């Protein structure tokens, strides 16, 4: 699953650790999501989208149909 999380986080001046703290997950988890090695659950994906203030589809893009 493609994500713009790294770019969105950088735009807001947050470190991985800061974002992780805001989301209540580990920094390693944020890193794995950003590098697209871990696909977050729907619940976490919604939390991320809410935190960056964008619709979920602007943060994550699933495989094209």
């Amino acid at each position, binding site marked *: 699953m493609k994500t713009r999380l790294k770019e969105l986080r950088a735009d807001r001046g947050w470190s991985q*650790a800061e974002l*992780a*703290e805001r989301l*209540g*997950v*580990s*920094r*390693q*988890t944020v*890193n*794995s999501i950003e*590098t697209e*090695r*871990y696909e*977050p*659950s729907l619940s*976490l994906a919604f939390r991320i989208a809410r935190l960056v203030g964008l619709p979920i589809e602007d943060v994550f893009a699933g495989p094209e149909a």
Partner: protein
Amino acid sequence: MLYYRLVPANPAMSDRRSLRTLHPALLWGFPLWATTYFAVRVWLEGNPGGPDGAARVAVALLPLPFFLLMLLGLIRELGRMDEMHRRIQFEALAIAFPVVLVFLMTLGLVEVARPLDPRNWGFRHIWPFLILSYSVGLAFAMRRYRDQ
């Protein structure tokens, strides 16, 4: 145990955890269980002619309450992990379980083919292999999600 020192989890989500952040049940349960287990094992193996029957069984069961304490701590630690670290645990067990299954099945067949000496191949010698296979599974799973 080492894994819990390395992996961050709620509420202390920093990447560097100390023993102090471990759940007390695990922090105390593990050393108490390990100490009691090995003490009991050494005593039972060293005193084959000691007290018989129920007394020996009672001694053999001494580590059990500490193991239950440790188990409680492990479950609590699991509850504090975030979803990716729970996934890592799941993948580690998904690798470890079939490895253990094959190991025990093979050992069972070898035992049928040629009776094994219980002094070398008792349950007390086998359980460390279960931890070993879990550790290998964990190493694979953690490698997949390591920082890049």
